[in-house]
């Protein structure tokens, strides 16, 4: 066994994603188990690109009804009115409320769409074997991983608005069908981030180093 490159995989070693231990699989095996923490090990996350694409496409599909269908329906003596996420942002916009309106705009509309685009960019560059901008790409992955959860903020806004405004027959607020799709976008993109293996970004570098000596 002679070392062929700088990565653990090139040395034939599994790096455990749970406990960090390096270990060597049985000869000829791709899979193994971590002797320290019992995690199932492979060199890279199994079917990472396919799984990430699957979650990402599902999220992109849900993104449309999430923005078109109403998330809240307000019923007053004057009748019922339904609001989508974007209408909620507009309603919140006022001389005093604009910072919060901005938070919802960023968390609910900009982050989910930016996240879908960023993951698609990472997947496509990895599939094309790109060796450029690796540091920026792994940083982009970390940013997506860090801020993705914050999109959930709108789900909580709508949950507590609806739970609290129950003053029939004066005024009541009920959750709308868009909420389900919006929560699905957040959860599916989080699962996509978890299935993506950032080490794939660097594997093209290792491959080209081997080719060119």
């Amino acid at each position, binding site marked *: 066994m002679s070392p062929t490159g*700088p*990565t*653990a*995989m090139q*040395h034939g*070693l599994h*790096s455990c994603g749970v*406990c*960090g*231990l*390096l*270990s*060597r*699989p*049985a000869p000829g095996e791709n*899979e*193994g*188990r*971590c*002797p*320290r*923490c*019992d995690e*199932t090990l492979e060199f890279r996350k199994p079917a990472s690109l396919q799984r990430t694409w699957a979650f990402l496409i599902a999220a992109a599909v849900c993104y449309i009804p999430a923005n078109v269908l109403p998330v809240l329906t307000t019923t007053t003596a004057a009748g019922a009115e339904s609001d989508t996420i974007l209408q909620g942002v507009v*309603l*919140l916009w006022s001389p005093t*409320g604009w910072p*919060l309106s901005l*938070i*919802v705009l960023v968390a609910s509309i900009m982050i989910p769409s930016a996240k879908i685009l960023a993951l698609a960019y990472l997947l496509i560059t990895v599939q094309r074997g790109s060796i450029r901008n*690796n540091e920026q790409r*792994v*940083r982009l992955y970390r940013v997506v991983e860090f801020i993705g959860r*914050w999109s*959930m*903020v709108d*789900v*909580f*806004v*709508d*949950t*507590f*608005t*609806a*739970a*609290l*405004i*129950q*003053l029939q027959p*004066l*005024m009541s607020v009920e*959750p709308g069908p868009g909420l*389900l799709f919006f*929560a699905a976008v957040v*959860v599916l993109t*989080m699962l996509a981030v978890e299935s993506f293996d*950032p*080490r794939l970004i*660097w*594997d093209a570098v290792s491959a080209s180093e081997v080719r060119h000596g």
Partner: protein
Amino acid sequence: MRSQVYNEPIADTSLVGCPHCDLLQRLPELAPGASARCPRCDKELWRRREDSLNGTLALGLAAAVLFVVANSVPMLGLTIVGRAASTTVIGGAKHLWDNGQQIVAVVVLFTAVIAPALQIGFMLAVVLGALRERPSKWVGNLLRHQPTTRTWSMIEIMMLGVLVALVKIADYATVIPGMALFVLWALVFLLAGMQASFDQRELWGRIEWAETGVRRDAAGDRVADGTS
């Protein structure tokens, strides 16, 4: 399909592969509070904590107490023309459930109540188990799943959502902040502190290994049966 074959660990546990770029490298001995980063992709690989277990235990116990209080008293209330209403965190999820949004209700309940409860519970069990010099295997089993509970525990995000809801509602009615609101804000900081003071790598280095039939000492070398 789960492989039943255990890998052969490498002898030198200061060697690691970067989780974000797989670069093989040696972690230096760190002073408490210092951290090591991957030279290729800048991922933080290890941050050594001073007195990690005691700090985590104290913050975890405080978080557990606040968590129970936060979920048993009202969080938000309002009054409008002589009528009053109030809700708890769980009440918010229950309202969704009762109004045909069962799936969203489960997501809210999981991210705002169940995942934080598991996050605190796992952490306390792990830390208590880790007080022994050679922590048992079950400590590792819980420690394995603790990072997942952290990802899905979204109390800080819920609090931002509550803040927005509060401002929205203030247009129609007088909002009465409940006790749970203040307790939850404190909990956000306790949970962040609890995670930050915990040194995972140090604990994995001491834990009893999963592989049965072979006993290894902390450095991963085989030792004779029955002598550990």
